[in-house]
């Protein structure tokens, strides 16, 4: 009896204790309510107003929409696939139609788990609460924030119908890869409107809001599929679909859009566009102003550029032995060389393709514009132009490839070496550029002076800091691929320079033009000398260090120059047809040279030129051969590449040179620098490139 009485006393104490606790909780709740309600945000009316933000849209030159920023495409609920509505309700809030903003049973369960199962936090937010959180609150986990979110949810439930709430919800949920709202998500992932989503697609999308990054189907298809399975099973459990339908939907083809399109076509390029817009209009206007931006990019060339660079880098990986795990460097398994490609329309300066690295997802650093790397010998065309212009030299002028020592004031003498160290003796300048002979470049820069070479480069559009030292002739100041492409386009365009640009037109949401680009060229170089240098660069492709391009089957008239820097840190090829100028850079991000598994250094001709050839072959496929414009005062002569004199019937390898009016061939060999023929005697041959 005493035991029973004790038990009764305990029960009584518990009962009254609970009553007191509940009373206290109610009192505290009322107090907190009035505290919380003081700075509770106002709910806009109508609810749809909150999501009416005009999007800023970025278009390709072809009119294709590349990207939508900031805004949301609001569609009525009737334009959303019923399957998607069912999927999102089953997954996020299956009692949505029953509750008034709070799912009490689920909340009690969640509190229980959170309190009594350490390490686990169970969510119980209804769709209305999620909407409330997304619209008004930060994502910080705070009790007061949670309470306010709950209050706003209650208000939304009291003021709006369930249809209005679910419509607002599906129009604002974040699905990842820049897709906000169901319509954008459906178009981004599946290239179709939200009304046409299948059960499988609806289930995949309904799984994304939980963690758009974790379940991003482009990055983690396996996780996305697993999440899809969860969604389908929830739909089955709720009774929206049968088991058979769930199974069949799980096995259905998703028909995902290619990630490059769905994500951000030419993301490196788009970054550049967005940055420019932000500089001009400010971030607020860019993200909330609803601009319509037409860019210069050609999506087809862009994807060709991406593909060519990807294949080229994979090929390079194999050369470096990275795939086999025998690459050089401690991190060769993980650290792979990077690359960049920029294609510029020669007669306008518009950027048609830009790839800033292996993968935008891996690294957003845009090597096409931000990476100033030494151009090596690809800088030599500026030197040759300067020499032709300032010294009156011509492609048939003979120089001697010999050891050179150039005294430098206040510094040790400069003794540039050839790529293969050996020297070949006398040769005409065309041959010297085709073989990229450093000793002759050094002799030229000694006579022109580095400042004039820099002036030429500046005229062509090189804007990076260039050091006025002799070695500038060998490309010892960093430049970006965009600068190189734009500067070489000046050669392609007969000496007319066009500023590179990437935005054609900017309009506001009502179609009023805020700016438009006007293509205006400026004569930067003399047309005839430009053609002479261009002719030298044609030789680079036809029989010089870039001849791999011809071997790969690219046969259209084109010119270009390879570049490789000390220790094979950088590999370049910049070249052009009359219409398109493309620059390719390949190298490690941080000081690491590129050598193949046999230890042989990888040059511009081996790494960058094949990427260029691959890209240009695709980009010009079907184009008729178009010759470069030849200025009227240019005439051609066949010469002996060693003596620079007119050929005879016995000249072994005659070479064609372009001469300007008044420039004629020498009857006898005249070697520049005052060297005699005997001093310039034949030396061991060197067919390596630089």
């Amino acid at each position: 009896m005493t035991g029973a009485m004790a038990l009764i006393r305990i029960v009584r104490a518990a009962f009254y204790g609970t009553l007191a606790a509940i009373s206290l909780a109610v009192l505290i709740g009322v107090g907190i309510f009035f505290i919380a309600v003081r700075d509770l945000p106002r709910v806009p009316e109508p609810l749809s107003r909150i999501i009416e933000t005009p999007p800023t849209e970025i278009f390709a030159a072809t009119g294709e929409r590349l990207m939508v920023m900031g805004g949301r495409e609001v569609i009525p609920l009737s334009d959303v696939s019923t399957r998607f509505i069912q999927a999102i309700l089953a997954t996020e809030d299956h009692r949505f139609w029953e509750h008034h903003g709070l799912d009490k049973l689920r909340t009690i369960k969640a509190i229980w788990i959170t309190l009594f199962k350490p390490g686990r936090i169970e969510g119980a937010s209804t769709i209305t609460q999620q909407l409330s959180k997304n619209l008004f609150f930060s994502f910080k986990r705070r009790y007061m924030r949670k309470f306010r979110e709950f209050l706003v949810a209650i208000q939304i439930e009291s003021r709006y119908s369930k249809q209005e709430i679910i419509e607002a919800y599906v129009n604002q949920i974040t699905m990842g890869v820049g897709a906000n709202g169901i319509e954008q998500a459906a178009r981004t992932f599946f290239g179709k409107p939200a009304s046409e989503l299948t059960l499988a697609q609806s289930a995949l999308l309904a799984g994304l809001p939980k963690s758009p990054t974790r379940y991003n189907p482009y990055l983690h298809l396996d996780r996305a599929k697993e999440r899809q399975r969860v969604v389908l099973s929830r739909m089955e459990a709720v009774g929206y679909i049968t088991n058979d339908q769930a199974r069949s939907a799980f096995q259905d083809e998703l028909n995902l859009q290619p990630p490059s399109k769905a994500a951000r076509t030419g993301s490196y390029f788009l970054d550049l566009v967005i940055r420019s817009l932000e500089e001009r209009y400010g971030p607020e206007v860019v993200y909330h102003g609803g601009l319509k931006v037409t860019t210069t990019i050609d999506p087809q060339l862009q994807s060709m550029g991406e593909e060519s660079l990807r294949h080229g880098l994979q090929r390079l990986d194999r050369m470096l032995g990275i795939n086999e795990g025998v690459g050089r460097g401690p991190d060769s398994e993980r650290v792979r060389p990077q690359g960049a490609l920029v294609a510029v329309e020669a007669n306008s300066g518009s950027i048609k393709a830009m790839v800033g690295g292996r993968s935008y997802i891996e690294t957003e650093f845009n090597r096409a514009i931000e990476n100033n790397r030494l151009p090596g010998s690809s800088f030599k065309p500026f030197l040759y132009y300067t020499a032709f212009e300032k010294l009156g030299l011509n492609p048939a002028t003979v120089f001697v490839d010999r050891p050179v020592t150039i005294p430098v004031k206040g510094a040790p003498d400069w003794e540039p070496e050839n790529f293969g160290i050996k020297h070949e003796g006398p040769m005409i300048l065309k041959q010297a550029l085709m073989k990229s002979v450093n000793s002759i470049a050094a002799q030229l820069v000694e006579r022109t002076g580095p400042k004039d070479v820099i002036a030429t480069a500046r005229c062509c559009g090189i804007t990076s800091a260039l050091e006025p030292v002799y070695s500038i002739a060998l490309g010892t100041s960093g430049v970006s691929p965009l600068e190189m492409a734009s500067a070489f386009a000046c050669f392609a365009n007969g000496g007319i320079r066009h500023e590179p640009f990437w935005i054609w037109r900017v309009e506001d949401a009502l179609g009023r033009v805020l700016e438009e680009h006007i293509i205006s060229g400026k004569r930067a170089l003399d047309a005839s000398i430009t053609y002479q240098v261009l002719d030298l660069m044609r030789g680079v492709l036809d029989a010089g260090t870039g001849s791999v391009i011809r071997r790969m089957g690219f046969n259209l008239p084109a010119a270009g120059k390879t570049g490789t820097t000390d220790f094979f840190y950088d590999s370049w090829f910049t070249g052009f047809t009359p219409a398109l100028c493309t620059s390719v850079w390949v190298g490690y991000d941080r000081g690491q040279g590129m050598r193949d598994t046999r230890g042989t250094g990888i040059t511009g001709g081996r790494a960058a030129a094949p990427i260029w050839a691959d890209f240009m072959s695709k980009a010009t496929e079907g184009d008729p051969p178009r010759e470069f414009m030849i200025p009227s005062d240019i005439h051609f002569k066949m010469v002996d590449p060693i003596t620079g004199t007119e050929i005879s019937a016995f000249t072994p390898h005659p070479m064609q040179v372009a001469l300007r009016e008044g420039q004629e061939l020498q009857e006898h060999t005249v070697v520049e620098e005052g060297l005699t023929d005997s001093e310039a005697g034949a030396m061991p041959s060197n067919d390596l490139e630089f």
Partner: protein
Amino acid sequence: MAFLVKSLAIRGNLCINFGNMDFSEPQNFREWASRVFAFRPLVLILIIFGIVISELRFDWAEQVVGVYLVKTNAQRPESGSIWEVSQRTVNARQRLEQLVTDLQSTQREARGAATFTQIASSLPPGQGVMLSSEHFRRLYLNLPGTMAHEIIAPFELLRLLSDGHWVRTYLESEDYGLKIYLINPENRVLRDLKIPSQLLYQIERVELALQGTLEDLPTFENRIYTAERFFRALNSLPEEELGSVVSQPEMLLGASGRIVRVGISDEAVSGYIELGFEIEDGTRRKVILLKGREWAVWILRSYLEEMGTDTQKSSGGEEIGEQG
């Protein structure tokens, strides 16, 4: 809660007499049971359960709170992320509207301009205006032939027109004057032209026909000659120098009325000296300002001075209206 139960009980007219309640602890199980299962505790428990169940079923608490919140909504602040976004959208729209308004007003002003000088003065530095090719042609044709020729030869313009590619003209204000781009439908520049500040100034002067006489303009003080004497002196100049003194004779030819007097400024600006031609048009007088090359005007002046001396010698210095 006890208070709540008590209040509810009172409101529900349950007639619970708390004064008769026994608050002493029951001594045995039976007493416990009789107290627990008595009418009043059962009613209390039923009420509590009723409240809980009805709340679970009908969500009345949320509804009450919801109604309260809806009613007080207007007094609450526009805070929270969506309002911030909304505010940013409003700011962005305002900024864009301002930008577009500025652009449009510049465009309107420039498009309403009758001369290149007016366009140049209406454009802020670095800004431009897009005109149709017809509009440009109208402005061009308003210019005196020599000036128009300085900008672009008429035949060159004719050639561009006949090509059919020239559709628009972009005019941009620059430090040195006005830059003009004749562009095709692809926004490619077919031809770029420049109107230096000096030429703009000349155009402005040419266009300027001041109402009044030369005496109203202090710059010509003591250098006003009769038209007859001026043109006599002008005719004494070598043929090739005439154009350097009066570079746009068609401006004078085009003016209605008769030139009665000519003034020469005492100030040279950038190698030019201003000439004022006073024209009598019925009862009205007006002055057209032109510019002449400094060196040519100086020669002309020396001729005028010599003629003045000769005239004085021959006629006793009587020249009506002449002060020079």
